[in-house]
């Protein structure tokens, strides 16, 4: 999609219609256990660590049938007779953390309700959710493009199981490993105006969920899912009839489904036919939607306050503690990084990647600790450049993740900060530092390496002149043509750096070369 930003502009309108979009987003909470029982929430044995959570979700997500189903179940999440749910305090805390960060009003009392629907993925034939007392009401999320998306509510609920439809079988199979896992559902007001808008919103929600350590928010593993409500109207008129599209398992599908649905409705309206209220499913392969149920078949959920779960009182003191333990939001991170002098793109990249932002903060801390009166800490931008370009590139080439480098630990962060400080203080050259990066990340002390190998940057005029004159003598024809061929200077620079084994101070080399070639400062 290459449509320009500012989606509320004419670009979002179709034949004079405005596209109106609301989202329902589900996020799988990052808890060790399920919402109402002690079973592992991630479907993984260990469950506790983020890495394990990812592995577990992957195992459950691909439907390859290679993993055993129904391993993480107990009487409670199987809905056996007499079993009772007991709320997971951590899940409540994470949901409130998320709701509060979205500026939702967090009530003094929150309660669970049973939402009834008969489907084999719900072993009790009801889902424990929240109805009139959710953890958050109202609130808003500001997108980086400045658009404010109002929220209707944020609530906690249990996930359903998974149905498996074996090929050529006359039956389906049920895997309840995921049943009872904690979810947050976030419902927006109809404030979005295009598929692109929706995608930007989802990206911001994902960044927020990760920054707050609330959810892995990985759509590809089913840990972030969205349903969309789409309607068309003439600008300024009341909302049109909305259609819900479900089964969207990537941000791309969300965007495509909204555009496809808007086109479908536009055609209906153009043809003078009305849009009927219905729920549609999204066919990923065909990139089109199909009818799931019409308004007449709309479910009556028969909500009932869950008598097994007494309402939970959220005291002011507890709420204050939750707020105090809440990490910074992407918006706050963006502001902080901008104030520290980072380029907007870098600030945004760090703000929307929790792993990188934690590594960056640790790096800044380490650099600050090591700095003294004589050796100031490197600029934040320099640290950002090293992290975002060199370290990320190195990790990518090494086929590992940035988290595996443990840059949030003082040791690794301190060593990397020291390497950058050496460059910034011009004690070593950039090329030297890049050559040392792998060893430093593997645990070597950059100062010791530089000292042991004599890698300090050379600024001595005599030494530099020796290398420069040697190179000029070796390449007389290049030197002669340098006046007409500016690129030739770079070639000669490279040879000098090579001759100095990367130690020659680059700006001094360039100045000397230009002087010898009789070229004015370019």
């Amino acid at each position, binding site marked *: 999609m290459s449509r320009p930003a500012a989606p509320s502009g004419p670009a979002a309108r179709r034949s004079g219609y405005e596209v109106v979009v609301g989202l329902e987003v589900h996020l799988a909470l990052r808890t060790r256990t399920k919402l109402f029982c002690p079973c592992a929430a991630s479907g993984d044995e260990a469950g506790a660590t983020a890495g394990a959570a990812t592995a577990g979700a992957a195992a459950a997500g691909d439907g390859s049938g290679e993993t055993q189903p129904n391993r993480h179940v107990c*009487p409670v999440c*199987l*809905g*056996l*007779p*007499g*079993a*009772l*749910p*007991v*709320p997971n305090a951590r899940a409540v805390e994470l949901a409130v953390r998320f709701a509060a960060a979205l500026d939702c009003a967090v009530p003094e009392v929150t309660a669970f309700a*049973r939402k*009834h629907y*008969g*489907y*084999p993925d719900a*072993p*009790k*034939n*009801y889902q424990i959710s929240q109805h009139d007392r959710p953890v958050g009401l109202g609130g808003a999320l500001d997108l980086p493009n400045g658009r404010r998306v109002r929220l209707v509510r944020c609530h906690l609920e249990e996930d359903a199981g998974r149905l498996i439809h074996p090929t050529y079988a*006359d*039956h389906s199979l*049920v895997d309840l490993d995921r049943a009872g896992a904690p979810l947050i559902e976030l419902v927006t007001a109809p404030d979005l105006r295009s598929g692109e808008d929706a995608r930007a919103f989802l990206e911001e929600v994902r960044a927020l969920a990760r920054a707050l350590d609330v959810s892995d928010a990985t759509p590809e593993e089913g840990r972030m899912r969205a349903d969309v409500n789409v309607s068309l109207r003439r600008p300024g008129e009341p909302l049109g009839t909305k259609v819900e599209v479900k089964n969207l398992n990537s941000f791309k599908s969300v965007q495509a489904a909204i555009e496809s649905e808007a086109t479908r409705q536009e055609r209906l309206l153009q043809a003078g036919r009305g849009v009927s209220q219905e729920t549609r499913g999204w066919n990923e392969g065909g990139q089109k939607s199909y009818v799931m149920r019409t308004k007449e078949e709309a479910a*009556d959920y*028969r*909500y*009932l306050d869950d*008598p*097994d*779960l*007494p309402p939970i009182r959220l005291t002011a003191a507890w709420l204050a503690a939750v707020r105090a333990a809440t990490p910074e939001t992407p918006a706050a991170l963006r502001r902080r990084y901008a104030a520290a002098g980072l380029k907007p793109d870098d600030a945004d990249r760090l703000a929307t990647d929790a792993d990188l932002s934690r590594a960056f903060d640790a790096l800044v801390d380490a650099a600050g600790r090591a700095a003294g009166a004589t050796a100031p800490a490197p600029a934040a931008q320099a640290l950002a450049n090293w992290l975002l370009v060199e370290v990320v590139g190195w990790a990518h080439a090494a086929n590992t993740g940035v988290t595996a480098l443990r840059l949030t630990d003082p040791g690794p962060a301190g060593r990397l900060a020291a390497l950058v400080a050496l460059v910034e203080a011009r004690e070593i050259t950039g090329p030297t530092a890049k050559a040392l990066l792998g060893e430093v990340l593997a645990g070597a002390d950059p100062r010791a390496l530089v000292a042991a190998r004599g890698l300090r940057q050379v600024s001595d005029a005599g030494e530099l002149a020796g290398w420069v004159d040697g190179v000029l003598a070796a390449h007389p024809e290049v030197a002669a043509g340098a006046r007409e061929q500016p690129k030739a200077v770079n070639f000669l620079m490279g040879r000098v750096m090579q001759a100095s084994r990367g130690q020659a101070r680059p700006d001094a080399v360039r100045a000397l070369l230009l002087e010898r070639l009789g070229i004015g400062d370019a």
Partner: protein
Amino acid sequence: MTSARETAAAVRSRRVTAVEVAETALAAAASSTSNAFVTLAEARALARAAAVDAAITAGRDPGPLAGVPVAVKDNICTAGVATTAGSAVLRGFVPPYDATVVARLEAAGALVIGKTNLDEFAMGSSSETSVFGPVRHPADPGRVAGGSSGGSAVAVAEGVVPLALGTDTGGSVRQPAAFCGVFGIKPTYGRLSRYGVIAYASSLDQVGVFSRDADDAAVALSAMAGRDPADATTAARAADELGPVPVDLRGLRVGRIADLWQGVSDGVRAALDGVAARFVESGATVVDVELPLVEAAVSSYYLIAMAEASSNLARYDGTLYGLRLGEARDGHEAVARATRAAGLGREVQRRVLMGSFALSAGYADAYAERAARVRRRIADALQDALAGVDVLLAPTAPTVAWRQGERLDDPLAMYVADVTTCLANLSGMPALSLPAGAAEDGLPAGAQLIGPAWSEARLLGWARAVTAKA
């Protein structure tokens, strides 16, 4: 008839072994003709008994209920022993876990000898709707035992066991206790764990105890009471002292709920007057108290119970356990429909359908929510009444046990009789039924005492004081 305390003392002092006690109780249960038991847990009881005997031999404390045989209503889960709630839909269901109350009774040395008959899913007042057939009254097989915990009441009345567990959602422990002439208590909501108790109406359900006297009930309650991490509705103070404190009745203020005295049979009224007289003889004063909204209690109670039942019973769809009818290839809904149609009895279907209706869009306001409001006002009214008196006295049931089949086709007549007992469930307050002597046809009548929340110890003490003189 030996009490639980006497049995435990005999076992502890090795005058009898727990295995001998278990064998005697199992034999008595097997020879009973009242259809009180639906499953006997021989292997489990004998294994537990052997463990109790071994503990005593080894000098370890076998617990306050050492070797005491108990019967457990069949809607309370027992690991490895079939638990059906008297329903075809759960035929063959063997729970992989014990209800907390069962685990705690056994930890105190008790021996679960079997599971008792009941109205299907505890929905009834006569123990006639079980898939295992009706329970017969111990004194007159042509009469009902009361319900829904009829089997447990009979097991104690016949002397098979000194203690039995029932569940009480609207009177299902107290009413059969009254009909069978035994002692029955429904504790404060939150006193006993509901974990492993097959839910009928979760906000009203509470496990209760049948016994021959107040002191045995106190021992059993003490063994089971207390917060359960597996039941979020158990209360922190649930483990408060439960033994019946010796009570001097002088100065005690007893409130007769005048409205409930209406429509009571002559025989039952005479028996209740006798209990009131015994209170007075002991130095208490008896006054009449007004209880507004009593006439709305039954409607409120049934709406709430049916609404919650419609939700709680939704899981019995033939997918994971129990009965499965229909063809899988026709889909979940078809299997659920066939399973429920044949697996659930008429009364259960009636309540589930009415409860679903009460919760449905457009009706929830008029029914479910209104019922909840009435419930709160009734609880407040009881609270107010108990501000002026120490304890409320009411009939447990308006009549003695009726004839088998008499009310099966008149559900409303059966529902209305719950007015006397459902107040305690709506308010969560503890209530007990004590034997009040014989009424019509020589059949037993029961007197009900209702006290403020967590007042079980006093309630049991007062009950002991007036029963002892009977």
